[in-house]
């Protein structure tokens, strides 16, 4: 029990640290997808990055526990027009990297995705950039290139079908899919 609590506190601390790291990066108003505020937290404002509240999106879990499960398919969300991997996903990526390194037959597909706005072909390039950023994070943890396949779908395969900030935030993602375990 105590161990679980400590673990949770550690995770929350990590999340808080990465969230405040987020809010310090420069954004202008047009970059805001859905805006949400951490209530009563000394006025810190944060970007919504998809639900990350344990809900399942398109078959992917988003709870902290799920994200840390090596060998479980993952979905990682991105800010508008950004392709840097958020610090909050590093533990999850490490768990996946560890799994791949310790399971020689494991192979991963990374798909890069964007929201629907703007040029489809330009979105293919943006999605590609996001998927490659995740690929680099995995490679820096020892995963060999041959274990990872990258495809950008740009705005062609949205997980959320709406046409509002909420859907757009969900569609800015990279999906990490085990093609073999």
């Amino acid at each position, binding site marked *: 029990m105590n161990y679980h609590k400590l673990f949770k506190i550690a995770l929350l601390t990590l999340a808080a640290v990465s969230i405040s790291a987020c809010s310090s990066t420069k954004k202008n*108003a*047009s970059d805001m997808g859905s805006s949400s505020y951490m209530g009563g937290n000394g006025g810190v404002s944060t970007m919504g990055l998809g639900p990350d509240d344990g809900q399942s999106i398109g*078959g992917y879990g988003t709870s902290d526990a799920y994200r840390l499960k090596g060998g479980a*398919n993952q979905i990682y969300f991105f800010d508008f027009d950004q392709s840097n991997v958020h610090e909050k996903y590093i533990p999850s990526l490490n768990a996946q990297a560890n799994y791949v390194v310790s399971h020689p037959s494991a192979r991963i597909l990374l798909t890069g995705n964007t929201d*629907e*706005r*703007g*040029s*489809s*072909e*330009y979105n*293919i*390039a*943006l999605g*590609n*950039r996001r998927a*490659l950023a995740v690929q680099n994070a995995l490679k820096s943890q020892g995963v060999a290139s041959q274990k990872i396949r*990258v*495809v*950008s*779908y740009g705005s*062609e*395969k949205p997980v959320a*079908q709406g*046409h509002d900030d909420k859907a757009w935030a969900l569609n800015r993602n990279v999906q990490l*899919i*085990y093609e073999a375990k």
Partner: protein
Amino acid sequence: MKKVMMAVMAVVCLSCQPISYAALHIELTQGMSSAIPIAIVPFKGQSADSNDSKNVASVIQSDLQNSGQFKVQASNFKQFPSSPSEVNMDAWKDVSANDLVVGSVTPAGGGQFKVNFSLMPLNQSDKPTVIASDSFTVPASQLRKTAHRISDLIYQKLTGKRGVFSTRIAYVLVEGDGDHKRYMLEVSDADGFNPRPIVVSNEPLMSPNWSPDGRKIAYVSFENRKASIYISDVASGGRQQVSSFPGINGAPHFSPDGNKLALALSMDGMTPNIYTMNLATKALTQLTNDGSINTEPAWAPNGSQIVFTSNRGGGPQIYKLDIGSRSTTRISFDGHYNATPSLTSDGKTLVVLHGEGGNNYDVATIDLDSGATRVVTQTGAVSAPSVAPNGQMVVYADISSGRGSLGIVSIDGKIKLNLPSPVGSVREPAWSPFLG
């Protein structure tokens, strides 16, 4: 998660037994206030019935009315001449029309029909003066096509510009939900009539581009669970894969002579660059080589330059590259986002997808001499503008109604049309060249 891989069905040829596909329904929403009034009398030999898709006069009436440049009178006539010799100018004195079209459709034996038409200005003299006329002998299946040709001739005579009533548009139609979507590359007449699929797939299709002779379409397909570029023959449905390199294979664009394809490839790199491919030998020439996103190449009509989208300056803007010298100049300056470039056939106007702030993307034109940018749509949810071969109209995709539909806008923004699809979501339109 086992992914079910379904083969692509390369579909039936366009001349085969038609399956009834739901046509895009064209609607003019804004015409010119200075539209030319024109009277078009029902052609002798066909009863006035706008529901008959082979009614030649009805098709001409719709073509000219939907151009936004004509105000068509189709009824309330005092007489029904079918040839200039039958016209009694007194009967047309009070009519507001500037011009009169008369004609006939008569059986010519062997299942063929003879179609005649004459165009006469009104209120200019006491005797009818024919300024355009022609005669066609065609099978019933070609009556609609013949009507479009007549519309082209009338349009050209009265506006001085070539009509696009005989052209086609290609587009992607997406149906279904979630994991069970179906993607179709379809070709229809420019008025949305007679849609036919040429590719059907369970994986996305995008970026259709017509060859200059109108016989082929290049496009991107994800059927192999990666992006590849194919060229399909429009009449037969036959196709070949021309590009399936590692990474991005995107944005195919035929050269003006039809011998090369410009395309965007990332190979083993982080970002795509512009290449050209010799279609006979498949040899590649790399034209850009920097770490920025370079994509959406479009050839200038002279074949020596390519315009393309690049974010080398921060956000996406349009650049022009001279193929011989490789020198590159930026040509878009207004707004934070300019992409999907295409040039009118006179090379003077650039049509782009344009963003000025926030989430809004609209069609804009850039006058390449003056640099002036004019935004011509106002929905804010636009993508994939494609200019017509006469440089007068632009077709684009619009998601503002929630379901993807197509829109058409004139190059000056004054004429607007919608082409919604009754089913699914339509996107990625490409206007054909002038055809046969």
